């Protein structure tokens, strides 16, 4: 049983080491090790500490956030296909980013616009569900999220349809996800959001265990199912929005990682969140490594690589379920 955790942690550490060791410029393991501790060749230190490490850390934070967010949403919505972008986060963030890019706002403000767009979309989804007369029924909220997402897509198409090609290129690249421009400041912000949102989800893990039994049983065990679910949606969406603001849309991670962790036999949500954070982090770190080393000198979009890496895992899991 403890073997699982050992593998998870080891996997993440190995992924991080690989990500700092590999790249276009070949560095020996010794050089990398020294560089991490400010010893040795100045160029190596710069490459490791300024170029590779921030990227790897950002990738890890994103994977951890998406993993926890996905696991929380799957449990609360009692739906194995739920994922962090479900409640309109991806659509709203993309609208925010596309608007910012097309209005020519400074590139540094695009993440802020994306974040604002994501939050606005989630609030809109809640509003739509509420107006449909539900008390937080997961299915209605799901549909509201789909509606908001579809609306966001049409807005994006409208804006991009009449935009000059450089705006389209910026927007599309953003939507495909990338950690190439990672800075320690970005990492700091994301870590802060993870601490708050992810921390809240960890705190509510047992409540989510109860929620996963169904609204009636949850009420019988002392929860207000709608209120608890709303709390979880808010925290999970906050974390997802923060990851999107930091690196664009990185799909599939939030959907696949909880399934991978469940596949190792973990069922309660507290260990599920911890496992999802570790496995998600490792997955995205490796995906980013692949994105920047598979077809040099080109860099593939991160979102594309995570999907390609995630699909075989997911298929393997599906086979086990059937």
């Amino acid at each position: 049983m403890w073997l699982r955790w050992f593998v998870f942690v080891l996997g993440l550490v190995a992924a991080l080491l690989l990500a700092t060791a590999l790249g276009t410029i070949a560095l020996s393991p010794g050089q990398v090790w020294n560089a991490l501790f400010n010893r040795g060749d100045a160029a190596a230190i710069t490459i490791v500490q300024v170029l590779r490490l921030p990227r790897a850390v950002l990738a890890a934070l994103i994977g951890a956030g998406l993993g926890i967010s996905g696991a929380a949403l799957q449990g609360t919505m009692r739906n194995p296909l739920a994922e962090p972008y479900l409640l309109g986060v991806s659509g709203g963030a993309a609208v925010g980013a596309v608007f910012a890019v097309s209005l020519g706002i400074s590139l540094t403000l695009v993440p802020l616009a994306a974040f604002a767009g994501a939050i606005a979309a989630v609030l809109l989804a809640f509003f739509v569900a509420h107006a449909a007369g539900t008390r937080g029924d997961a299915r209605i909220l799901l549909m509201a999220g789909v509606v908001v997402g579809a609306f966001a897509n049409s807005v994006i198409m409208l804006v991009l349809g009449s935009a000059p090609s450089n705006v389209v290129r910026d927007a599309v690249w953003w939507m495909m996800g990338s950690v190439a421009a990672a800075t320690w400041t970005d990492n700091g912000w994301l870590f802060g959001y993870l601490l708050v949102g992810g921390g809240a989800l960890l705190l509510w893990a047992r409540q989510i265990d109860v929620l996963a039994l169904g609204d009636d049983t949850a009420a019988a065990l002392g929860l207000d199912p709608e209120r608890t679910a709303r709390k979880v949606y808010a925290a999970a969406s906050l974390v997802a929005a923060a990851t999107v603001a930091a690196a664009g849309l990185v799909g599939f991670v939030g959907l696949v990682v909880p399934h991978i962790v469940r596949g190792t036999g973990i069922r309660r949500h507290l260990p599920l969140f911890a496992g999802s954070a570790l496995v998600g982090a490792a997955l995205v770190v490796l995906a980013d490594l692949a994105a920047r080393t598979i077809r040099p000198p080109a860099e593939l979009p991160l979102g594309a690589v995570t999907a390609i890496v995630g699909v075989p895992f997911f298929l393997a899991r599906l086979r086990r379920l059937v």
Partner: protein
Amino acid sequence: MIRYEDVVVRYPRASRDALAGVGLDARRGMLTAVVGPNGSGKSTLVRALLGRVQLGKGRVLVNDHPITDRMVFARRVAVVTQREELAFPLSVEEYVALGRFPHLGGWRGAGSGDRAAVERAMERAGVEEFARDERQLQELSGGEWQRVRLARALAQEGEALVLDEPTTFLDVAHEMSVFELLHQLAGDGHAVLVVSHQLNLVARFADEIVLLSAGRVAAAGSPDDVMQAAVLERVYEWPLVVTRDPAVGAPALLPLRVRRRT
């Protein structure tokens, strides 16, 4: 201990009240059964207790107080609803252990007292070997699942137990053992409220029967009082005969086939 006072509930967009002024008192030390035809409002009573439907009028009281804190409620009253579907795999033991949630809250770890409560609950419900064999919920038969749900409720160690159709899917041996258990719990001082359509079982074990019809109480009292052919025929809209079962001494219902052969 659980009292309904003039409770009125109407579902949104419904043409009539699901409960049209129901009064009921499930007292300690008694097994109270709620019976009635489909659609008479039996399950709505349970939902009203859980706060899953809005009360149009009236109140539901626990120990003479309205229900304000759900967690406190869950420590006093254990409810098993009619249906429960799981989305994700879970082991029997983990599931029953969640019955301790109202006592643990969000973050207190399960102590030896909690573990003992879970063991006791599983024994009383007759599912202790499921824990030994590490059975998973999704592998259970319908009847096994019912008993595990009962175990969860027992793990809550409340003063009252409310069950909606607890004998669905159970064979005769398990039906009887569940009702024997409920009878015992009532004897120990719990308030037991059972919604059931099994009139004959109810007639043998219940201390008090409440007969619902179209959202109202059509009759209430001891089994002998309520199990009268005239009342039952009118409520169930089916020809039937009430006999007294010689072996057991409790009233028994015999529905008649529609084309009578005299």
